[in-house]
């Protein structure tokens, strides 16, 4: 009898779009896209956060249905849904935890590693916050830095971690939305979206050399700095291309939808290539307005430059390393805009390149756009999470799961076993 392959799902509820990807995990652990649902957010999400839940839910359900239909009804096999979040007061900090190696051989085992990791997460957070993600950056065994401590001999293990936390109430809205959209019985993981970007487009060499990744989205801009294969800083500012469109709309007295379209479809980039001096618009009263192209450039430059400058200030304040030899990587919907890369280079004084999800496997195409970096990274991470779930699964769990399925109730037992996910 053929065994059905595992199916995982990645959901991004963004300011401009709601995207659902369904992926099937192949024998070698690679994930292939088998279904996609894409629906515009239609104003239900502002600055990365859900602001109109009743209106959002039908849209999310529609996106899930689309994904299910395009995958040929494989949604029922989904074992894990991965939700990508931003906004929500997300902040990050570096933590350190330690454990004493007590076994007779004085060799670091998984037990010590887990204990140090748990200690590192004891942070003095405000009561309304919860830890969202925690990733190991590096370890020290008796003060000696190692990238993997297992089987190292010593007395004391120190784990340095990067902890991302957010406001619990705001994050819960995302969990509830996904549960209400039909994933109530499926294991759910929530991740800060830029971690998914990182997983989607960065290479190991870049992570080792030092790289700044910026996801310029519609409502929020997220950033992450990787150095020596560890995350040094990450964060989000609730400014994005919507602010650019809004600035244009206010300055030029144009409809906001028109401004959004001009930014998204490359109109302005083409005008610049053609050296056009003026853009002509006909007003409501019928009169013709000639707006100099330089006015558009000025308004856009001011805003984009400000976004990058705030990130630079935050990075300086967080003590992120200055020598990022691999340069900068720009992704997200705003990366396609013609001025983004240029301004990135000017502000950060780093070389910059635009990245799209390049290694997408599967029959579905159309994901080769920087807008889909997060959701693709989310799918890859979901496959990784599922692998880790299975590693910790005992034979008895499989038996209980099987019985549960037989009885029509698929209450998961592993949901609370591993709250801490290592990326």
């Amino acid at each position, binding site marked *: 009898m053929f065994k059905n392959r595992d199916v995982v799902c990645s959901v991004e509820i963004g300011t401009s779009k709601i995207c659902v990807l369904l992926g099937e995990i192949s024998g070698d652990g690679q994930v292939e896209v088998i279904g996609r649902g894409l629906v515009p957010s239609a104003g239900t999400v*502002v*600055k990365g*956060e859900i*602001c109109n839940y009743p209106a959002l839910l039908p849209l999310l359900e529609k996106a899930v249905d689309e994904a299910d239909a395009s995958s040929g009804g494989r949604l029922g096999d989904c074992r894990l849904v991965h939700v990508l979040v931003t*906004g*929500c*007061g*997300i*902040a990050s900090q570096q933590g350190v935890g330690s454990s004493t190696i007590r076994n007779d051989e004085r060799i670091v085992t998984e037990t010590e590693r887990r204990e140090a990791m748990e200690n590192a997460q004891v942070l003095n957070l405000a009561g309304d916050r919860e830890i969202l993600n925690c990733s190991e950056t590096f370890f020290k065994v008796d003060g000696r830095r190692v990238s993997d401590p297992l089987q190292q001999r010593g007395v004391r293990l120190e784990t340095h971690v990067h902890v991302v936390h957010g*406001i619990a109430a705001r994050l819960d809205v995302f969990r509830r939305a996904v549960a209400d959209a039909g994933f109530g019985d499926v294991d759910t993981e929530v991740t800060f979206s830029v971690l998914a970007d990182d997983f989607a487009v960065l290479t190991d060499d870049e992570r080792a050399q030092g790289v700044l990744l910026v996801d310029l989205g519609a409502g929020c801009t997220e950033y992450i700095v990787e150095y020596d294969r560890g995350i040094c800083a990450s964060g*989000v*500012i*609730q*400014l994005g291309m*919507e*602010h650019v469109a*809004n*600035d244009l*709309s*206010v*300055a*030029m*007295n144009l409809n*906001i939808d028109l401004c959004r379209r001009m930014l998204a479809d490359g109109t302005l980039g083409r005008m610049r290539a053609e050296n056009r001096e*003026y853009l002509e*618009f006909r007003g409501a009263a019928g009169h013709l*307005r*000639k*707006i*100099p192209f*330089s*006015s558009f*450039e*000025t*308004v856009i*430059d*001011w*805003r984009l*430059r*400000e976004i990058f400058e*705030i990130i630079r200030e935050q990075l300086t304040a967080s003590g992120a390393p200055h020598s990022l030899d691999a340069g900068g990587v720009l992704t997200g919907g705003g990366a396609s805009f013609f001025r983004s890369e240029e301004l990135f280079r000017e502000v950060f004084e780093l070389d910059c390149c635009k990245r799209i999800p390049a290694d997408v496997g599967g029959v579905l195409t159309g994901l080769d756009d920087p807008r889909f970096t997060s959701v693709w990274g989310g799918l890859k991470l979901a496959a990784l999470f599922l692998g880790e779930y299975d590693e910790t699964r005992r034979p008895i769990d499989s038996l209980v799961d099987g019985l549960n399925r037989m009885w029509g109730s698929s209450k998961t037992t592993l949901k609370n076993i591993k709250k801490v996910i290592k990326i």
Partner: protein
Amino acid sequence: MEKEKFTIMGVGGAGCRVIGTLRQMSAAEKIRLVAADTDRSGLESSGLPADRCLLAGEMWRGGRGCGGNVGDGQIAFGRARTEIANMISGSSMLLVSAGLGGGTASGGIPVVLSEAMRLHIPSVVLVTLPFAHEGNLRRRQAVQALDEDIHKIADAVIAMPNDLLFSVLPSTAPLAEAFRMADEQVARTALALSELLCAGNLLNADFSAFSALLKRRKSRCSLGVGVSRTEDGARRPEIAFEEMLCSPLLGGASSLTEADAVIFSLLGGPELAVGDVQAVFSLAERYTRPETVMLTSASTAPEWKGMLQFSAVAIKFDRQEEIAVPGKGGSGGRRQSEQGSLFGDGAVEQPALPFDHVSKGIMESTQKVVWNGEDLDIPTYIRRNAVIDNGKPVRKK
């Protein structure tokens, strides 16, 4: 800082005349001179080649000037942002010289400064204020442009009232001569400033110190320039100093003695001796109070062979207020309720009817995003006082 990268831009009629005067000075050869005006005849007076001149709003005004309308000046320069950026790009510092009161300078300088700011070029503005007899309107326009626009964007501003000219000239002095003298004085001052900030191969006044002196506080500046030559003999430092004291724009020795800060700059040829420097600075020290902040610079340049120029910028601060820095809470100061974070989780506040409404577009009713006390939902160009031409016809004031 390289002298070649220092750019002096003349804006408007008075600015172009200053550029014309500078062009004839051999010492200004290494400085990049550019001129911008809405009036074709003004640009011609600068005598610069066409590639160094910008006739703003040519298509629309036809090169006939602004007729004293500030709005027209703003629009004309706003439409020529790209050209302005091309003219000043690559400069390590920009000095804008103009006479306020008309339309071109009062409307155009903020545009030039915002472009300089965008390109990260430090800017110094050297402007003259209109004569009292030119009428209240021109004076009001000049003061308004200075206080509301220029002071907020420029890194340093030196404003000199033209009336100072008449206070030291006999009433029989010819008017044309008085204007020529004023232009020459401003040109020499611009040159002295460029030397003060850029050359400094002996003693260097730091630009940040200079900027800090002028940036945050309203100040009244007056300046004097004195030149002496080798033919003047051994007393040439004293002669240069005395000529500086008699300089019409300085307003007499009392300007120095009452100043809160003074910037002295000495410039000479390769033969400049230590004794000359000592002599002139010891004289200068006698005219300043112990609590006065003094910035000094001395430099030599081959083109100044046989000459000695001593210049002083006397600054008197306005005691009443410190100017709010743009982008740090706006002109109205920062409200407590605007303190918050980038996550928009600032304290809940009682909504108040804003006195000065700024459009936030679709961001009006969203959770406010605040950074360094600034409401980031307000379009950046509004917070940075940039003038944008949106193609709408301008209503005459």
